[in-house]
């Protein structure tokens, strides 16, 4: 886990943690890390996620299954063997390789989309919470409006406008999933903006930007972490759904959603390689992400500190 540079946050660390002494050893973050380590399930999940990332990185660099989009007609619908643990698909491509490359798609969409939604959510939430008044009213209006449109309609319509493709999917997901983050951050800002440490910063002459980004934001940053994780999971799921519906990534790009789409016809053969591989890969990643998120949330929650 990344740790903030404590030098830049002397006040925040002091104010947020209950300790009066702002050393890095018992800062909120260190404390959270210590507690996170105690959660075995969380740690295992973290390693599983790490494994996915490593596998994806190996696939991107071409070490694992470099020729996955090259068809091999002679090998179509091969059954399970050592060289093809999940068999091959209609075009003779190795299904395990497809699933691994699908991981790349999933992780990149998760990463990009949840980063985008996090940035939008954090900025809008902090600005709304900090300034209040008309700015707040405007932002609340915006996110209430966005939130009132069911995402299952909003995202497909956005992808209709933007067209298919990885980038467009991540823009569509990012632009529609920032509301919860914004709402949470806004609430936190309301609470924090009149706290003593902010007043102190104000008294020392800090401007708005410094107070928002230098002081309050680091104190609500744990929220961002958890939101990021949740966003990641939902972005992966949305990508799969969109690709399944034919609105997601370009079909030339491997995706779990496309594999399940293939599988719905192939099950009649009966041929289940695509379905098994895609769902197992999805299951592993999403389950570990959820467990990891839970562990992270517990670790970062000051209320759980003494448990």
């Amino acid at each position, binding site marked *: 886990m990344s740790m903030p540079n404590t030098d830049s946050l002397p006040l925040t660390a002091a104010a947020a943690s209950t300790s009066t002494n702002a050393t890095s050893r018992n800062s909120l973050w260190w404390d959270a890390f210590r507690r996170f380590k105690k959660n075995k399930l969380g740690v295992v999940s973290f390693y599983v996620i790490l494994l996915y990332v490593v596998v994806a990185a190996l696939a991107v660099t071409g070490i694992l299954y470099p020729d996955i989009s090259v068809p091999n007609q002679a090998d179509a619908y091969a059954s399970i063997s050592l060289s093809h643990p999940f068999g091959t698909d209609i075009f003779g491509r190795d299904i395990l390789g497809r699933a691994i490359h699908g991981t790349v798609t999933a992780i990149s969409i998760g990463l990009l989309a949840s980063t985008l939604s996090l940035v939008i959510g954090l900025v809008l939430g902090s600005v709304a919470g900090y300034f209040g008044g008309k700015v707040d009213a405007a932002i609340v209006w915006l996110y209430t409006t966005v939130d009132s449109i069911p995402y299952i309609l909003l995202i497909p319509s956005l992808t209709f406008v933007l067209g298919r493709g990885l980038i467009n999917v991540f823009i569509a997901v990012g632009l529609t999933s920032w509301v919860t983050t914004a709402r*949470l951050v806004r609430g936190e800002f309301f609470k924090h903006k009149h706290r003593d440490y902010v007043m102190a910063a104000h008294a020392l002459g800090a401007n708005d930007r410094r107070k928002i980004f230098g002081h309050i934001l680091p104190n609500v940053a744990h929220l961002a972490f958890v939101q990021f994780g949740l966003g990641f999971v939902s972005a992966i799921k949305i990508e799969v759904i969109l690709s399944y519906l034919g609105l997601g990534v370009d079909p030339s790009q491997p995706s779990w959603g496309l594999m399940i*789409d293939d599988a*719905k016809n192939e099950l009649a053969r009966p041929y289940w390689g695509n379905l098994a591989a895609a769902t197992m890969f999805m299951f592993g990643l999403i389950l570990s992400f959820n467990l990891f998120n839970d562990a992270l949330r517990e670790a970062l929650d000051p209320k759980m500190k003494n448990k």
Partner: protein
Amino acid sequence: MALSKAYPARQFRPRGQTATFVQVLLAGAVAIALAITGCTKKRFDENDNSLNLVLRANVKGLDPISANDLYSSTVIAQMYEGLLEYNYLKRPFTLQPALAEAMPEVSKDGLTYTFKIKKGVKFHDNAAFKDGKGREITAQDFIYSWKRLADPRNASEGFWIFDGKIKGLNEWAQMVKAEKANYDTPVEGLTATDSNTLVVKLTGVYHQLPFVLAMPFASIVPKEAVEKYGKEFLNNPVGTGPFVLEKPTDWVRNSKITLKKNPSYRPATYPTEGAPGDAEKGLLADAGKQVPFIDKLVFNEIVEDQPRWQNGLKGNFDWFDIPKDNFENAVKDNKIAPELGAKGMALDVTPALDVTYIGFNMTDKELGKNKLLRQAISKAFDSKTYIQKFLNGRGVAAQGPIPPGVDAYDDVYKNPNAEFDLAKAKELLAKAGFPEGKGAPELTYEALSDATARQGAEFFAQSMAAIGIKVKINSNTWPQFQEKIKGQKAQIFGIAWGADYPDAQNFFQLFYSKNKTPGPNDSSFTNLEFDKLYEESLKLPAGEERTKLYRKLRDIVADESPWVFNAHRLGYRLVHGWVGNFKWTEVANDYPKYIRIDAKKRAELGSKL
């Protein structure tokens, strides 16, 4: 901190509550299970004299002038009729009078056709008429309907059937465009000498006229309904056909269309003679009886293969196609699988009289001007593998537009650009200015959104990747897909053409420049020599001389490669045991009226499905 409040769902749930939740779930499951088993006992009503069919794409609209796709025109053909129709049983396909009293009298020069129209035929009862009662049809109705087809404001995809053929009709259309004429302005080539005599004068010989008159485009529509409904006429069909859409809500968009038997349908009988062997198959048992035999006709729209197949097996459709992924289980040694045969189903195999192809937009900056690029793409596409993979070998690799079974089909001809050869394709691509695909434009392929169509698109993209051309794939619904093609917005598109009538001209008109999209020339192919030869071929009756011209036309198309010729398909479908009088008709869509359903047998066989 606020965290725990933000995630109440993750907090503890009292155990007692969980238990009740499970109980509720269980109770629900039991209730549903009971309901299902309750249903299976009586799945089909013994008195339900209905025919249930399935379409694999969505219907666009129910106006005859927009009947340019198979799915819409299949439904339209149930409600609308024209002067002529095909004999249900005879092969090769033979025309017979429908709303006409008899086959037309043709003048010696072949330029004047005189039709006598049946007396006493009435339009469907509809609020558009006085007292809601359908009025009798007249010759004037045909003139009105055909003017409507020509009216440029309607931008009909079907005007090609009369374009430049009927004296004064094109001029009339021009005047309407300039707002100098209306529907009362006479057209020289279309006159009604009395209320049931229609005289059609042609600009030149048009041997295909009787064929096109059997197409839904040339159907008769009542002026009253068109005027009453305006744009909504698309959803409020009023014709003379054997079935009626009683109310617009009987059409649930993208789901199903329920038609009822037309109680005042004209006297029309089941054919008394058929092709050799029909009598032995029991197809002549109903000879001479009034049609239709069924009371209700339902068209279901199901885009995906598996739901269509599963519903078909369950007996929800009376016949249905076999998808590629189910083929091996359904057909063994070209016979129906025994376990399906034991359930009373039969296998029907009929050549589809069609050509599947990948069309290029010839107005496209890159593709339109670069013949070598098109040839390279064509050579890099392996239609034999495609047929194995997607059609289970049920088809022949197409060498040109004409399918086997249509006159002028040449079974020895090999199209030099259609034969798969990667090395030659790469050579051609280099000649086209893109060695190894360097500098080649990224192409966009428009496909339908179902899984099989997407896989077909992927197959094309892979074939192109092999010579270094990148292809992007777009998914569309059928109406969206059509819209893109008609607007020349689709760069490359995978589509098929099924014969409207059994004449090769129906395939060559797809390349005639005056039929440019929104007409049937989807590629907007323009070639002066082709146009000249095509126009010449129109003047000739069927025979050796015309066949020679057809070969020349084919050679031009093969060389210019506006399409990648893919396959001529063989239709495989399963027919349930309770369906009587089934004979697959490839060019006519009015078959439901001849079908007989044995509802008792359906109730009996259906309970075992």
